[in-house]
């Protein structure tokens, strides 16, 4: 029996152990995602990658691929729900794209472009969140954090430092730093750490790199994230 499933009617092979997302990526089929990065253990928290499998919604980044799965992905219903999730993320944080150095390279923003989101729809939360500029080389701006835990996973799995973690609960969930003071400058973080490279938004930025690539010439300025991530591999 062949190990294949279909995504939006297209037959796609998979290897045992792969998730739906893995199989889709290998086949060049784009499933929107934010908290997923194939280099790390799947997380399943952003829910942007939700697909419909045989009538049930599942997160494609954590669901093992199985033979005969009929997966719906690029549908108006799912993309509409994904747009709503993005609007939730924009509304709950303080995402001021015009003053963010990540603008144009930001996955959150790129997905908003890809899904044609023109406004946050929901009432803005304007939460009060801390900015930590104590580190000589890295800026942590929690206003832009979407709790994807990519930095948490990278620091733990790759850097072996456990610099980041989440504390709080619910809407009070916040990124915390492994230092007696709670400050990045007192942590073991180095600018070369993987954790610094993986932030999908501008919550973690390397200092003194600002605007080396001008706005208008950035990763997602002319190519949608669906194209960038399927043709060039994962950035």
């Amino acid at each position, binding site marked *: 029996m062949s190990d294949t499933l279909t995504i939006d009617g297209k037959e796609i092979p998979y290897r045992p152990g792969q998730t739906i997302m893995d199989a889709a990526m290998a086949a060049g089929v784009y499933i929107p995602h934010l908290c997923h990065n194939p280099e790390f253990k799947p997380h399943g928290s952003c829910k942007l990658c939700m697909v419909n499998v045989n009538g049930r919604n599942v997160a494609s980044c954590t669901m093992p691929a199985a033979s005969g799965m009929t997966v719906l992905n690029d549908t108006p219903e799912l993309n509409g729900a994904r747009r709503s999730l993005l609007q939730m993320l924009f509304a709950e944080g303080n*995402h*001021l*794209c*015009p003053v963010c150095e990540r603008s144009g390279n930001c996955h959150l923003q790129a997905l908003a472009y890809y899904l044609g989101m023109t*406004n946050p729809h929901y009432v*803005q939360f*304007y939460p009060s969140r801390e900015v930590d500029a104590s580190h000589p080389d890295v800026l942590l701006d929690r206003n832009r954090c979407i709790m994807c835990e990519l930095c948490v996973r990278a620091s733990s799995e790759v850097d072996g430092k456990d610099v980041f973690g989440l504390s709080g609960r619910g809407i009070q969930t916040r990124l915390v730093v492994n230092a007696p003071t709670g400050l990045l400058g007192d942590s073991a973080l180095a600018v070369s750490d993987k954790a610094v490279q993986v932030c999908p938004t501008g919550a973690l930025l390397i200092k003194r790199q600002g605007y080396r690539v001008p*706005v208008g010439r950035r990763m997602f300025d002319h190519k949608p994230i669906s194209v960038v991530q399927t043709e060039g591999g994962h950035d």
Partner: protein
Amino acid sequence: MTDGKKVRIATCSLAGCFGCHMSLLDIDERVFDLMQLVEFDRTPLTDIKHCGPCDVGIVEGGVCNAENVHVLKEFRKNCKVLVATGACAITGGLPALRNNIDLWDCFQEVYQYEGGLEGGQVPNDPELPLPFDQVRPIAEVVKVDYFLPGCPPPADAIWKFLSDLIAGREPRLDYEMLHFD
């Protein structure tokens, strides 16, 4: 959208920087084409002080004070279609950076601590618009029909958006015209 009659447009800038208006002017020579199709009611360009019945209202900037609300409500009342234009109108934008700063601290900083202000005090002149606790998107105050994002929206996006609207098409922006920065 008006059966051969010119489309009447009003524009204003609330808590904004007029950057969106500058971008409108950036359509360059296409402004001649535009003038064939539209006429302007209240705008910073016409110096008309109050908005009359219009087809389209273009609002730049968020809502940061009581005067903004009066202007915005006047626009909503008079404009068939209201367009939130630019990051500030849509999300609060840069002025919303003050949203987590206590208003009293803001006043002190501006009127009492600023260099050269000896014996400064908080003014209480009724002519001065009273600020809200927070700067809010206009969609949280009135119903908004369309959103044209960007800081500012590129001239091409404004042109495309208005062309669509005037032609009676549902406005659609190409990928490269949809920007938040």
